[in-house]
């Protein structure tokens, strides 16, 4: 086991990782940028080290800065959190070259699963159904038109690199396709430095369901259930829950068991998430794998009692899993709400500024993962996630009722947050009956959605 871990991330996830290091009795050093000097994780760490200026490129994304920080503070492993360098195989390789351990999949595993198209082929070969799509990357407009014709409209244009909805467009006709290709190319070039695109069949009224897996180095793997992330705004997750209300229990079991056996067979290692689209007939299609801890991991932890960050650390240290699928008990229902510093009324404009008061909700089945405190200044340089409110109940109605109470208790003064938006979601009939799809928020229009929620 490691002695001292460098946490190379910020915000709530730095704090989350620090808590597990503490619980496991491991030393923890927090690497931070100049803009994050006053964050909670920096205050609580055994040691904290400034690695660069606010600009992420020269701090959280600078491999030399992070590696040097780990070496001068005597760490033997680096936890990258999510985002930043968390799935970068070259960084994982450099970490190893400096005699340190990357907490995540080993570099060769990251490399094997780095290409989305390659991963789909690999896992399809191990039995996972995939969405009909273009053969490889689109060569030019003509190739795109031919492939779209073959797949059948509507189709979704997707960039090979990156994520987060950039460079993605759904089109319903050849004319729309031609117009969108130019936009998608320039968007993905700007966002990811790579303009290669591919096509996928668009599933109307689809749901986004993902499976959490935990796989050790010795080929033992379990799943920790699935999460439904269909409440999205512009392809960004807003609310996640487990189990998914979209599938009956036997279908959920088939989905999760199929996912874990495919990744074990394909040689995956460490924790990971397989994302699927589920169509209205309940058929599911694998889309991509995330080789890191996810933002929404707490709901899986609440249902299973498994500390996923601890599993990540143990597996990276070479420990065997030590339990089987039968030992994993998934109980009740959990929902997570991403609390963002966003002004919903003004197109979700990100907010920065000083937190004047912060009161976290509590009570049975309530968990708040947040780095906020009164007086903390939210810097403008990074994403707008202030924390995650997760609730658990023995069933979905109780979880929803607890969520309403918890959201009403939450106080974040000094900044505008999206908490009213979550209250509106909880009042939406399609959320309450579980029939919502990924179109929910984009179709209704977010401002109208909040206004509608208030009226009812």
């Amino acid at each position: 086991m490691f002695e001292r871990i460098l946490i190379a991330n910020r915000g709530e996830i730095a704090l989350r990782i620090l808590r597990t290091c503490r619980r496991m009795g491991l030393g923890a050093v927090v690497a931070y940028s100049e803009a994050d000097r006053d964050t909670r994780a920096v205050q609580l760490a055994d040691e904290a080290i400034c690695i660069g200026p606010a600009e992420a490129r020269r701090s959280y994304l600078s491999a030399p800065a992070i590696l040097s920080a780990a070496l001068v503070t005597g760490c033997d492993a680096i936890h990258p959190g999510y985002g930043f360098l968390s799935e970068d195989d070259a960084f994982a390789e450099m970490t190893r070259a400096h005699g340190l351990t990357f907490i995540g999949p080993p570099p060769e595993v990251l490399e094997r699963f780095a290409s989305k198209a390659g991963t789909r082929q690999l896992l399809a070969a191990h039995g996972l159904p995939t969405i009909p799509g273009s053969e490889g990357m689109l060569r030019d407009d003509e190739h795109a038109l031919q492939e779209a014709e073959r797949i059948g409209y509507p189709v979704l244009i997707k960039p090979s690199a990156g994520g987060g909805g950039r460079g993605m467009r759904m089109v319903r006709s050849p004319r729309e396709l031609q117009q969108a290709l130019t936009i998608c190319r320039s968007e993905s070039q700007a966002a990811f430095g790579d303009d290669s695109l591919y096509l996928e069949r668009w599933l109307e009224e689809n749901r986004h369901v993902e499976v959490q897996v935990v796989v050790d180095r010795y080929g033992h793997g379990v799943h920790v259930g699935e999460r439904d992330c269909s409440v999205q705004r512009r392809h960004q997750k807003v609310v996640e829950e487990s189990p998914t209300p979209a599938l009956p229990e036997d279908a959920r079991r088939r989905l999760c068991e199929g996912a874990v056996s495919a990744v074990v067979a394909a040689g995956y290692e460490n924790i990971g998430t397989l994302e699927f689209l589920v169509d209205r007939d309940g058929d599911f299609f694998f889309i991509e794998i995330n080789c890191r801890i996810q933002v929404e991991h707490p709901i899986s932890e609440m249902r299973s009692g498994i500390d996923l960050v601890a599993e990540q650390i143990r597996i990276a240290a070479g420990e065997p899993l030590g339990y089987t699928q039968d030992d994993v008990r998934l109980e009740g229902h959990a929902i997570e709400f991403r609390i963002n510093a966003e002004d919903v009324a003004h197109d979700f404009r990100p907010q920065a500024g000083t937190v004047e008061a912060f009161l976290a909700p509590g009570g049975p089945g309530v968990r708040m993962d947040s780095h906020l405190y009164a007086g903390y200044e939210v810097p403008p340089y990074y994403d707008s996630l202030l924390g995650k409110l997760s609730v658990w109940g023995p069933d979905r109605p109780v979880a929803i009722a607890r969520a309403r109470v918890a959201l009403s208790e939450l106080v974040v003064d000094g900044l505008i947050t999206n908490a009213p938006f979550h209250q509106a979601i909880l009042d939406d009939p399609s959320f309450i009956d579980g029939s919502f799809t990924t179109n929910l928020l984009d179709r209704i229009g977010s401002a109208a959605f909040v206004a509608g929620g208030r009226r009812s």
Partner: protein
Amino acid sequence: MDDESPRAPGADEPEAIGDERLTVEDGAAELIVALEPPAEVPTTADGAAIGRLVDEILPLLIARFRAGQMGELEVRRADWHVRVRRPADELAPMAGGAASARGADAGRRGRIAAAGQTSGTGHAPAPSGTPTGLAPVGPGRPAEGHGAAPAANPSLVASSPAVGYYATRDGIATGSQVRSGDVLGHVDVLGVRQEVVAPGDGIVARLLAEAGEAVEYGQDLVRLEPVSRADSVREA
């Protein structure tokens, strides 16, 4: 990334500058290539080595770099090192929060590495840097009372440009007279030296870190008593 044939950025028009350093841009990634000759052989870099670097190694490196999310990548060999850095405005926003890092200096940076300095560092300039020569790195600022207005007799502090092990430059000691931009020491980052630069003209008042000490980014390293320009002219 899968089917993109990597171009050799700068193979077309390398902005060859100085004798040990060149900066090339292809719009997607800026490269700062610093060739560091072995310590005891202060020759100019070998033309063939540069050719191989540009034609063979860089394209591979760029392709690899593009495929990932890293903001900065550095590869070292015995007689050279290469650092590839992505312009700020091209970084994808990520869940973990790399987002709108205001890329104010991205456009300006292309020209910066033009200074023919030895022992290149490829370090981006401090925001106040001027586009000539190597701008002082790390925030040079009045010491004492962080953020408070400079007192009647303000002093200047040279701070660390990076995380690593610090060493004062030979010949720099309490009492040394230095000029703005002079190298006072360096910070060793994974074997690459990053310079600690005087933020103004002055006399070394105090060395705040010892040789071999681990230092963090922005840490105060050398305190200077400022000398006004009039004083320096008189002395000169």
